[in-house]
C-alpha cells in the first residue's frame, strides 16, 4: 500500500486494517517514513525524524498485540509533535540556537497521553522560533514550505505540523496555538486545525510563549480525527494549575446531524471587513449560504472590539513572553555563549546569539509593555481590551450557538514576502486572535480551493463546547465535501529553483 492510497483514511480505517492484521504497525510506519523521505527534501517539515526510533516504537506495538481486546484509540498511528513540546530522549529545540542541542529530561503531559493511547511519536516538527511567527520562516533550521505550493509558506508557527499532515507524511500532528498558530497554518495547508478551550489541554512540558493564551491542539486531514485527538489530549493535569479540573472532552458528546441542524449560527460582520481577501470572504459566505439552505438559523452579529483585539493580543502575549523567555540565560541548560568572562557578558552574549531577530523584537516589546511608567499605558490596557473582547463573545453567545468566520485574512503568501515587515506578519493572525483572547475553542477547516490554494473557515464555540464545534465542523465537512489535499511529490527541478 502507498500513502496516496490511504489519502482518505481516517484513524478508524487505520485501526480497522491494523486490527484485522492486514498491515502491521511496522509496515504502516514504513509507508509514512517512505513518504517523508520523498517530501522532506522539499518541505522541511521535520526538525527531528529518527526512523530507527519510530520503527522501534512500532515493534513494541507488535510485541504486545492486545489480542481480541479493542485497540487503544490511536494504536499504531504516527503523530508528529511540534518542536516546542518536550519529548523524552529527543531534542526540543523550539527552532532556536539557544536550545539547539537541548534534550528535555521529562516529557510533556500531552505526549504521555498520546503514548498511552498507543500513538507512535513520529518526530518533531518545524516552527517559528519559540512559536513566534506566522510563517515558519524564522526557524534557525530553515523554513518549512507549503506542500500545496513550494514557493509559499505553510503558515505558522505550527507550519511543520500542518505541512506534514497536508503532504500525508503523517496522518496526525499536534501544534500549539497562542494567537492562531494551529488554525492559521491549517488554513494555509488545507487541513483541519483545532485550538481547544483554554484549560482543556495541559500545557505541562510545552515551552511557554504566552502562558495565558498557549493551548495545544490537533492537526489532521479529517474533522473526526481531530476530535479523536482532542479527546486523547484533553483532561485535567495535576501538573498544570491552569488546566481545568473537568472531565475530558469526549467524541461521544458530539451532537448528531439532527441536533446540529438546530444550532443558531452567528456570522460576525467584522470578520468580513475590507482587511480580508475578497475571495476568502466569498468562499466562507457561500459555505454559510449552503448551511442556511440546509435549514440552519443564520444570524448576523457584531463583535465590536474585533478591530482592537490584535493590538491587545500583542501587548499581553509579548509581555508574558518577555518574562517566559528570561529563563534562557545559559546558566542551567541550552547554549551558553563561548568565552564569556563576566556574568553580564554571559547573559548578553548568550541571549543575543541564542535568539533570532523576531524573538528579540518581541522580548523588547514585551519588556517595554511591562516597564514602570508604561505598564498602564500598554500591558494593563491590553488586559482591559481583552475583557472587552471576551464580553463581545459572551454577548454573542446569547443570540447564537456557534460562530462562523474566515480563518485567515489572506492566502498563503510567498516565502520572504512578509518577513521584513513584522506588522504585516502580525496582521495574518487578525481573525484567529480574538477567540484565543477569550479562551474559546476554535477550529479551522478547508472550505474551498481557489486557484489551487485553500480557504480556511473558522468555527468558534463557547467555552468547553468542543462538542458543538466538532458537530458543526463534521456537518460542514460532509456538506462541502472538499477533499483533503494530496499534493503530488514535486520533481527535483521544482524543489531546486528556490
Amino acid at each position, binding site marked *: 500500500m502507498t500513502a496516496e492510497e490511504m489519502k482518505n483514511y481516517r484513524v478508524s480505517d487505520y485501526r480497522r486494517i491494523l486490527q484485522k492484521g492486514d498491515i502491521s504497525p511496522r509496515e504502516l510506519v514504513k509507508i509514512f517514513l517512505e513518504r517523508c523521505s520523498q517530501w522532506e527534501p522539499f518541505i522541511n517539515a521535520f526538525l527531528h525524524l529518527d526512523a530507527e526510533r519510530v520503527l522501534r516504537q512500532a515493534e513494541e506495538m507488535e510485541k504486545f498485540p492486545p489480542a481480541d481486546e479493542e485497540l487503544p484509540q490511536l494504536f499504531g498511528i504516527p503523530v508528529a509533535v511540534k518542536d516546542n513540546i518536550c519529548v523524552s530522549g529527543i531534542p526540543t529545540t523550539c527552532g532556536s540556537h539557544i536550545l539547539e542541542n537541548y*534534550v528535555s529530561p521529562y516529557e510533556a503531559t500531552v505526549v504521555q497521553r498520546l503514548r498511552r493511547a498507543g500513538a507512535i511519536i513520529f518526530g518533531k516538527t518545524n516552527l517559528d522560533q519559540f512559536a513566534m511567527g506566522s510563517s515558519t520562516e524564522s526557524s534557525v533550521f530553515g523554513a518549512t514550505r507549503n506542500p500545496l505550493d513550494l514557493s509559499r509558506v505553510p503558515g505558522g508557527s505550527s507550519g511543520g505540523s500542518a505541512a506534514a499532515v497536508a503532504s500525508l507524511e503523517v496522518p496526525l500532528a499536534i501544534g500549539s496555538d497562542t494567537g492562531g498558530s494551529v488554525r492559521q497554518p491549517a488554513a494555509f495547508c488545507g487541513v483541519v486545525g483545532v485550538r481547544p478551550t483554554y484549560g482543556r489541554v495541559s500545557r505541562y512540558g510545552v515551552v511557554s510563549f504566552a502562558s*495565558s493564551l498557549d493551548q495545544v491542539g490537533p492537526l489532521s486531514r479529517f474533522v473526526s480525527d481531530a476530535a479523536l485527538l482532542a479527546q486523547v489530549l484533553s483532561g485535567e493535569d495535576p501538573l498544570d494549575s491552569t*488546566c481545568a479540573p473537568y472531565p475530558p472532552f469526549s467524541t461521544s458528546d458530539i451532537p448528531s446531524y439532527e441536533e446540529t441542524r438546530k444550532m443558531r449560527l452567528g456570522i460576525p460582520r467584522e470578520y468580513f471587513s475590507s482587511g480580508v481577501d475578497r475571495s476568502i470572504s466569498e468562499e466562507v459566505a457561500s459555505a454559510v449560504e449552503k448551511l442556511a439552505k440546509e435549514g440552519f438559523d443564520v444570524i448576523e452579529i457584531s463583535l465590536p472590539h474585533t478591530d482592537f483585539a490584535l493590538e491587545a493580543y500583542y501587548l499581553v502575549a509579548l509581555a508574558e513572553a518577555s518574562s517566559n523567555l528570561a529563563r534562557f540565560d545559559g546558566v542551567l541548560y541550552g547554549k551558553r555563549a563561548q568565552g564569556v568572562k563576566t*556574568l553580564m557578558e554571559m547573559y548578553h552574549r548568550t541571549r543575543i546569539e541564542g535568539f533570532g531577530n523576531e524573538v528579540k*523584537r518581541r522580548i523588547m516589546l514585551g519588556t517595554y509593555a511591562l516597564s514602570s511608567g508604561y505598564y498602564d499605558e500598554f500591558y494593563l*490596557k491590553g488586559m*482591559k*481590551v481583552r475583557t472587552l473582547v471576551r464580553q463581545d463573545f459572551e454577548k454573542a453567545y446569547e443570540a447564537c450557538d456557534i460562530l462562523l468566520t474566515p480563518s485567515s485574512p489572506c492566502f498563503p503568501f510567498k516565502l520572504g514576502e512578509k518577513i521584513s515587515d513584522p506588522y504585516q506578519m502580525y496582521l495574518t493572525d487578525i481573525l484567529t486572535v480574538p477567540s484565543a483572547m477569550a479562551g474559546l475553542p476554535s477550529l479551522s477547516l478547508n472550505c474551498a480551493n481557489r486557484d489551487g490554494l485553500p480557504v480556511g473557515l473558522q468555527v468558534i464555540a463557547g467555552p468547553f463546547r468542543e462538542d458543538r464545534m466538532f458537530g458543526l465542523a463534521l456537518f460542514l465537512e460532509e456538506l462541502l465535501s472538499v477533499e483533503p489535499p494530496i499534493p503530488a511529490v514535486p520533481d527535483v527541478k521544482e524543489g531546486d529553483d528556490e
Partner: protein
Amino acid sequence: MAHLSRLEFTEQELETFFRDLNNILVHFEKLDTLDLSNVSPTSHITWTSPPVNPDQPVEWGREEEVMRAAPKVEDRYFIVPKIVDKQEG
C-alpha cells in the same frame, strides 16, 4: 530596555530595531480611542478554582541528567562567571 531584557545590539541593529519597534508601537495607539476607565483587566482565563499540591515531598531523581547536559557543572554546582557584587543577592 535592551539591558532590562539582557540583550545587546550594535548601533546599526538598534536603528533597524527601533524603526521596526516604532512601526509596531504606533499601531498600539489605536487602543487610545477606547474608553477603558470602567473596564477590569483580564489577566487569566479562569473557569474554576485551580488545583493544588498536597504537602508531601516526592523525589524527582533525574537531576543528574540536567547536570550532565548543563553548560558548566563542577562538583554538582552549576558554574557561572564570578559574581562581583556578592552583596546583591
